[in-house]
């Protein structure tokens, strides 16, 4: 688990830097693709629900976005809280209503 957390910490850090310094040159209709959000969503969708890895990655991703973006609504921590809530919500929906065939369900 610790190895996975360190790996995702490094990956999300690099992705945030790419997003804020490299991808800003390639806007699509003025929008920069949010790679950090995409990765966090994918982790939350495709990792086992009971090991908290999705929630931890949401916290890390949100924190890096907070650090490398100007504070949204003037509040440092905005992205962290939004990502955390999103991750918890996704986990709740997946646990209750969705069965993904190749993901270990906490109920099995």
């Amino acid at each position, binding site marked *: 688990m610790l190895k996975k957390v360190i790996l995702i910490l490094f990956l999300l850090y690099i992705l945030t830097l790419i997003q804020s*310094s*490299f991808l800003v*040159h*390639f806007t699509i209709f003025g929008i920069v693709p949010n790679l950090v959000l995409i990765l966090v969503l994918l982790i939350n969708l495709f990792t086992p629900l009971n090991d908290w890895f999705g929630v931890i990655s949401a916290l890390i991703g949100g924190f890096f976005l907070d*650090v*490398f973006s*100007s504070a949204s609504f003037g509040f440092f921590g905005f992205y*962290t*809280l939004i990502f955390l809530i999103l991750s*918890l919500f996704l986990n709740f929906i997946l646990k209750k209503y969705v069965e993904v065939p190749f993901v270990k369900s906490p109920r099995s």
Partner: protein
Amino acid sequence: MKSTFRLNLVLGLCLLIALFLAFNFTGLGGTVKNFFYVISSPLQEGFWKAGDVTSDFLAGVFQAKNLKKEVDELYLKSRSLIVKIAELKELETENQALREALDLGLEKEMKLSLSRIVSKDISGEVLLIDKGGKDGIEKDYPVITPQKLLLGRITEVYDNFSEVMLITNKDSSFDAKILDKDIYGVVKGKGDSDLYLDLVPKDKEVSAGDIIVTAALGADFPAGIIVGSIKEVKKSDIEPFQTAEMIPSFDLKVTDVVFVITEF
């Protein structure tokens, strides 16, 4: 069991919110940001340059068919500019003599601090530059390009870095006037690299191509800095003022360094 889990979850969330509130109110958030900017700036500068080069290359590939037309247009423009340069050279000599006589150098008009762009925010029109409080940068200082085109103003200052809100940001608005005309208005950002001129009296004649410069009315920016040009004028019978779509004069794709005006 389930209720204990929920209680822990709510407690954890509250703790996190309290932590962030403390970060925001004690200014610790700025310190954390500054720390990450310091350790990441070499990587960020590398990514910024790589993005710049790649986007230039891709723009060339995708716009190849327009390039011929553009080259022809630029050739014609360069001809007329050569004539202008010749005229200006004569004026320059005259101007230099006058400046020396009056002791009015630009560096005496305003104090500038050179800075590099490190990154651009994805959520808004905000740039991060590598000069901060330790370099004497303060909030609300104007920022211009080396060509003396208005870029924005400082909105957040950390120890070694600062955030610049571009003039195209939705929260940006300042007084401006049309060059060589006695017409004043307010330039407002629209987001997505767009801006417009607002509150221009209806009876004033504004036309596409007019150059907009900062006005001396507001104390936000020094007067006479080029902001952009008029793209399209919009008049409506029901509105008391006319507005005009603008093209900003700066181009971030060709701008790596900026000047922060520390005194004007």
